């Protein structure tokens, strides 16, 4: 379907300029396919870092107090640093660049039939800021006081007060890295939405847009609409850490719960930001490999929009027992259980697409089918947690961890490999 060796920009550039050198072609390119690969390779490299962290702390749990091969002794502080950065890296620096940025950049212009993104230089800047955020994150491991160790959710006051978190510089750099990363994806999102809405090939109507492009566009809109509060929160946190303000500091009248609201108002749509592109990839593969039309394309589209809208109304289910007004939990239980409907509908549609098909079980198809089989586990375990009564006990336990990994592993790893094996040569 797509060939990364195609050069759309070559025809108008070739006459006036000589072939650009390696550095300009691969490092400072404005070509969407090169930028996609930059995002892909950076994301994959960081997946190895995040995976190594997981290996270290799981080994520590399997053999407590013993030296972990290739790492050494895991102190309590190291343990917290490792889980914190494993979480942050896997979500912000692996799932997002690979699923949204890499596949979005690669697929959108090719699938809707235009030369490049609408704002190619913004696209390049987006990757460069993303790279800067990676550098800042890695730098945070080598500063005095060590890396940030207050969990990827960065709940204050642990993250804001040096005497509690014990890593003042590490915490600041961590927040800066996260904020920079959001700025990068904000630029990417502007490009994805603008390109898909304005640069489609003549004759391609809204209902003709491939489902994966639609899903990336909806994901970008979700991201752009939800990230504002978090960037604001990150800046407030930086002020709290370094300038002595007290947005989240209860000693001086601030409220630590405010951060949780800002974080999860972004954090829950974020789940769908990475879920939707993966679902889109899987949808494309299943339709192609079972030689079928997508079952009820419009229904899928509407459920995608429905999921997007609902995803903004569920954030406080992360905070049922965090000290919010208990009456509020009832509303968020309703919305949380409601969101099972569009997601279940999507899964049913994929399964229905298989009906009457002629299914080729090649590598991308196996990845895509395993996505559905595994994601269902993540989906059904979510019901336990969304039900507020059961969540009193399950909050902050390994049940949450397992649920979360059963959703994110299919999304970030299985979805990515499905797409990679399907589109890349």
């Amino acid at each position: 379907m797509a060939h990364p060796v195609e050069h759309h920009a070559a025809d108008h550039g070739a006459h006036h300029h000589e072939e650009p050198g390696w550095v300009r072609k691969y490092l400072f390119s404005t070509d969407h396919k090169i930028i996609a690969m930059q995002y892909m390779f950076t994301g994959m490299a960081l997946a190895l870092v995040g995976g190594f962290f997981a290996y270290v702390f799981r080994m520590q749990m399997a053999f407590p107090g013993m030296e972990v091969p290739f790492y050494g002794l895991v102190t309590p502080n190291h343990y917290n640093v490792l889980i914190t950065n494993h979480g942050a890296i896997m979500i912000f620096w692996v799932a997002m660049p690979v699923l949204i940025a890499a596949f979005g950049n690669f697929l959108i212009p090719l699938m809707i039939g235009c030369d490049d993104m609408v704002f190619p230089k913004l696209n390049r800047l987006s990757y460069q800021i993303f790279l800067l955020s990676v550098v800042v994150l890695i730098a945070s491991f080598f500063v005095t006081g060590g890396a940030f160790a207050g969990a990827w959710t960065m709940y204050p006051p642990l993250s804001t007060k040096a005497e509690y978190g014990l890593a003042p510089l590490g915490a600041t750099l961590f927040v800066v890295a996260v904020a920079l990363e959001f700025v990068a994806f904000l630029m990417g999102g502007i490009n994805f939405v603008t390109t898909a809405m304005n640069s489609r090939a003549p004759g391609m109507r809204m209902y003709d847009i491939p489902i994966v492009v639609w899903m990336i566009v909806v994901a970008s809109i979700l991201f752009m609409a939800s990230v504002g509060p978090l960037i604001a929160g990150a800046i407030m946190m930086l002020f709290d850490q370094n300038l002595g303000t007290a947005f989240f500091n209860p000693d001086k009248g601030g409220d630590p719960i405010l951060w949780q609201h800002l974080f999860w108002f972004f954090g829950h749509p974020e789940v769908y930001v990475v879920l939707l592109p993966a679902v889109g990839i899987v949808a494309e593969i299943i339709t192609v490999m079972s030689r079928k039309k997508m079952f009820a394309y419009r229904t899928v589209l509407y459920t995608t929009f429905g999921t997007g809208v609902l995803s903004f109304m569920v954030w406080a289910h992360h905070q049922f027992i965090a000290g919010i007004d208990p009456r509020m939990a009832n509303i968020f239980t309703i919305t949380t259980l409601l969101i099972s409907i569009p997601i279940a509908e999507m899964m049913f549609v994929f399964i229905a697409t298989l009906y009457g098909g002629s299914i080729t079980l090649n590598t991308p198809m196996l990845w895509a089918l395993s996505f559905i089989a595994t994601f269902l586990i993540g989906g059904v375990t979510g019901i336990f947690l969304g039900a507020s009564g059961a969540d009193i006990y399950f909050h902050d336990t390994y049940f949450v961890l397992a649920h979360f990994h059963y959703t994110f592993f299919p999304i970030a790893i299985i979805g990515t490999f499905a797409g990679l094996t399907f589109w890349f040569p």
Partner: protein
Amino acid sequence: MFHLIERFLPSASTYSGDIDFVFSLVFWIVGLWFIATEGVFLWLILRFRKQTGMKAQYITGELESEKKWVHWPHMAVLVFDVIILIAAVRVWYDVKQNLPPAQETVRVVAQQWAWSFVHPGPDGQLDTPDDIKTVDELHVKVDTLYHFKLESRDVLHSFSVPVFRLKQDVIPGRVITGWFQATKTGSFDIQCAEICGIGHALMPGRIVVATAPEHTAWMASQSPISVASLGSPRATQE
């Protein structure tokens, strides 16, 4: 069938059985859905695998007669959602929203990285000279309705008593009140459930549930500790 968690962890409060019930209800509902969905999924993959002489059918899924195959299942999901919702909210209301009148009140103070507990002395009132203060060990009477008042001195912690199925975050700057009523005697775990710094893993506590005479005997054995020494709980422990 509706006490699945109890196989692994004793149930020792008046509402722990209700919470187990919600879990078990959800377990059976989504468990059956899960098996049915995966079953249909695997069957379709096998049934419609590529075979010579078999062509794929043209199905858009836009016709009502076709759409019903995903429409009805999702209406069924909605019905089950409502069932789960009613069960969950009822338990939530009992445990978190409703605050039955207290027979005794204890204060729970969390800090990096210890729990300190203030028990009312023989007079049954907090903030009187006969208060009993302990570190990392909470003593309560069985079958008595307790209110707990949660306070934090520094960062977020979470007061978790797994056998009661009770969990509540502790927030600096606020006093959060909740309730429990133990139904079994014994000594059970308390664990901080919110990451709170280097010592987070080393922040366990115990809750000792005793009969009323045993509890009175325990109270008699304790001399009220002065408020000043509470400032350094580690020191009093060692």
